């Protein structure tokens, strides 16, 4: 699997995801500077976490306008898979690659720590190594991860199975008080990640790339990258 990781001014988790990709593929991904109009063919495009343009104005808004994003949109339209993590998710949402928006966390605070996620479906490039309904533990680290979409969009997402992950408690409970307690940012319907219509683009707030080694936060995120390798090589 040849991966390309985009780097915007203010990106800061590109190294983390590159580290994870190298761990599972044995090879370093190509790092692509935002100014690039074009870049080498890649089987996977990654929009990494961070604070592109300082998260100023709206998270991801300025990065979504950078030259390289035009190319990303073009390739995404051709079906090239895009993994958009955290700030990458915000950029993808601003760029219209995935539906919805990410608003300020309900409690208005940056939140960092492990959360539990329920895998909604194993029928995707990104989750084929997980079981539907499986609960995984990965960290979050963001101040604007409060997912929002209007009622029609939500209905569409639910109907077409475009919801990738939901926040849940360790035992998998999604709704109810625990489910909400387990929701770190107030996301509507506890949504932690979504797909585009073709499920070739996934945006998620949590950081699977920071859960790929035993003593550094566990391995629950590793399967996501292994699944991609399996699907894309």
């Amino acid at each position: 699997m040849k991966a390309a990781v985009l780097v915007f001014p203010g990106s800061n988790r590109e190294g983390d995801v590159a580290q994870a990709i190298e761990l599972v593929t044995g090879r370093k991904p190509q790092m692509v500077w935002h100014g690039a109009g074009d870049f080498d063919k890649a089987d996977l495009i990654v929009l990494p976490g961070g604070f592109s343009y300082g998260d100023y104005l709206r998270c991801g808004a300025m990065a979504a306008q950078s030259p390289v994003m035009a190319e990303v949109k073009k390739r995404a339209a051709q079906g090239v898979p895009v993994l958009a993590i955290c700030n990458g998710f915000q950029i993808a949402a601003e760029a219209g690659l995935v539906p919805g928006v990410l608003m300020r966390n309900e409690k208005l605070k940056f939140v960092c720590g492990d959360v539990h996620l329920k895998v909604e479906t194993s029928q995707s490039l990104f989750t084929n190594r997980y079981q539907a309904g499986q609960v995984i533990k990965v960290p979050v680290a963001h101040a604007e991860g409060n997912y929002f979409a209007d009622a029609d969009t939500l209905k569409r997402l639910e109907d077409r199975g475009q919801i990738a992950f939901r926040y849940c408690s360790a035992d998998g409970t999604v709704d109810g008080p625990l489910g909400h307690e387990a929701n770190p940012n107030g996301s509507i319907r506890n949504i932690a990640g979504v797909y585009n219509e073709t499920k070739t683009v996934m945006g998620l707030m949590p950081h699977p790339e920071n859960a790929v080694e035993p003593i550094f936060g566990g391995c629950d995120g590793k399967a996501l990258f292994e699944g991609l390798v399996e699907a894309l090589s």
Partner: protein
Amino acid sequence: MTIAIEKNPPVKLPNEPTITPQVVAEHGLAPDEYERLLKIMGRTPTMVELGIFSAMWSEHCSYKSSKVWLKKLPTEAPWVIQGPGENAGVIDIGDGQAAIFKMESHNHPSYIEPYQGAATGVGGILRDVFTMGARPIANLNALRFGDPSHPKTRHLVSGVVAGIGGYGNCMGIPTVGGETNFHASYNGNILVNAMTVGIAPTDKIFYSAAAGLGNPMVYVGSKTGRDGIHGATMSSTEFNEDSESKRPTVQVGDPFVEKLLLEACLELMATDAIVAIQDMGAAGLTSSSFEMAAKGGLGLEMALDKVPMREDGMNPYELMLSESQERMLIVLKPGREDEARKIFEKWELDFAVIGHLTDTERMVLSWHGDIVANIPIPPLVTAAPVYERPWKLTDLPPVLDAAKVPAPKDWKGSLLKLMGCPDLASKAWIWHQYDHLIMGNTAIRPQDGDSALVRVPGTHKGLAMTSDCTPRYVQAHPETGGRQAVAEAWRNITATGAEPLAITDNMNFGNPQKPEIMGQFAGAVMGIAEACKVLNFPVVSGNVSLYNETEGKPILPTPTIGAVGVIDDISKAVGSRLIQVGISLVLIGETRGWLGQSLYLRELFGREEGAPPPVDLEVELRNGNFVRDQIDRGRIVACHDLSDGGLLVALAEMCIAGGVGAEVALPATGVPSHAFLYGEDQARYLVASPRADKILNTAAKRGIPAVLLGNTGGSAVTVKDVLSVPLDDIKAVHEGWLPAYMNSTD
């Protein structure tokens, strides 16, 4: 040397006020200091020159009150590459790698504007570290706030924490540890001490000494505004009409620009274009340019009109004294300007050649062609005032007899009271607002161990780091308190299995012109120095913050110690969480039941009295080395040093952290139960092990006090015949206090 003056005497600026004794005073220069200035200058200074002297001779830049004492700190060891005197300390951690670290205070600005004050504090210490060629890999922060019931405290906590997180999170540097205390003495003077640890190849470390006649002096980073120019000095220097826009302003940090600056600097450092580099911190362009020139024994000519400016109508005085953030000065090799410019322009940062090095040993500043300042550099630096201020040591208070301290009427209540008191309550509300996981190298997270443990990128090595100080001990007896702060830091590193290597110190004290305050400082330094010597734990960098007083009331003396240690195989490190059921708990070290200055005494009886626990450094060394060795042999699965609250608090912390209970029994000693359980005797560790027998045998052979207390298991903390408290109850008070406090309004 004075020829330069005769040749081109400096011109005055339009409507420049004349230098009156009042103007001098407003610049914080004492009359005799001004006399000294006149001798050096051989004439009346211009406003710009006066401003420069006042900045360079300020306590902050000149260390005039503390210098004589700081000299006494041990700064050498075979692994020390660079001790105090550079932007940060540098130690060798093997494999051609160096750890570069320092701690710095941003106390006053954080009190004035908590968010920006704390944020720019983090920005400043990060620059100190990456200026030397290091990529920062971790931040820590030591915070001291006033009494929780003080009307300002809540607002200060929320602003400071948000500011530290806001800057560090955006930079992408994990904030992995620190400490947070509350005490009424900080009501009007909070402490915000920020620490950064970075990594660089030992053969690619950058220093600030300028070199190379004629080499270009380059300004990079953000534009210069009127940030942080000292209010009083400004008001006395209205060069222009007194419009609000001309007033000095609070420094505002731009972590986004700092992130770009970090990447741009590291990119340029990968080339060989840099001769010297220095960040612009306190006293901005003034201190950075003088330090670089002075260290290089050279002169410097700068055209201030070339400095990138953010505001209209800025003048040389403002440009030299501005504390705008995210700026650096670089001496480049000749002819490398374009190469460097390209890099900074790629990162959308300002880049300007503002001067060049000369052999005159003078600082000559021009403004649109006119000389506005012409100062001989060596005398300004060497003849800077140094004071041996009168000092009076604090006498050791009478030792408190443990028998005279009552046992708790309600044992369960006493443990819950301590576990939920502001100093011991969980600080999760704080560190969950800090990205402590970015970079994917955090092996021991906040609250999971005595030190944070961070993998050195691309290796199996780990760096253990901690920040420690017990101000109430220092207040009671500064020498003991200084010793204890270093010893606890050393212990916290040791408790993870890492080898303690070196420390950075942040000396926060009151008004040094009071003999008893200067005595606290002197005592603390003596204690720290002695501990560093015995533990072979040198000081490689530090920072001093004095005058932390309000209405004559000083803070508790707070010499914060930031420490770094290394473990070669990070998989061998241990935290303090109890996760295994049915293993043994062993107490290492002697317990005499020391209750003087204990939290038990303060929290349950409101008494802050007695002598602090004595610190026997030889015993610390012996016990600590034993524990580290046992961890290395894989006999210990969890370890916690005993500090605030003593044995019972440490046990409770280990249990709730891992979610496993414990059942212990008090060994037969003459010590009363409450003294045994809450005493704060030093040099002790509580360890969990499946092979206690081996530990006890080895300990016996080596004459190390070690006693089997009991086993892990169950869902309560139980001390036979004394108390049994469900973990959930402990968790509730421990984790509940800070969020509840922050969410309430009165």
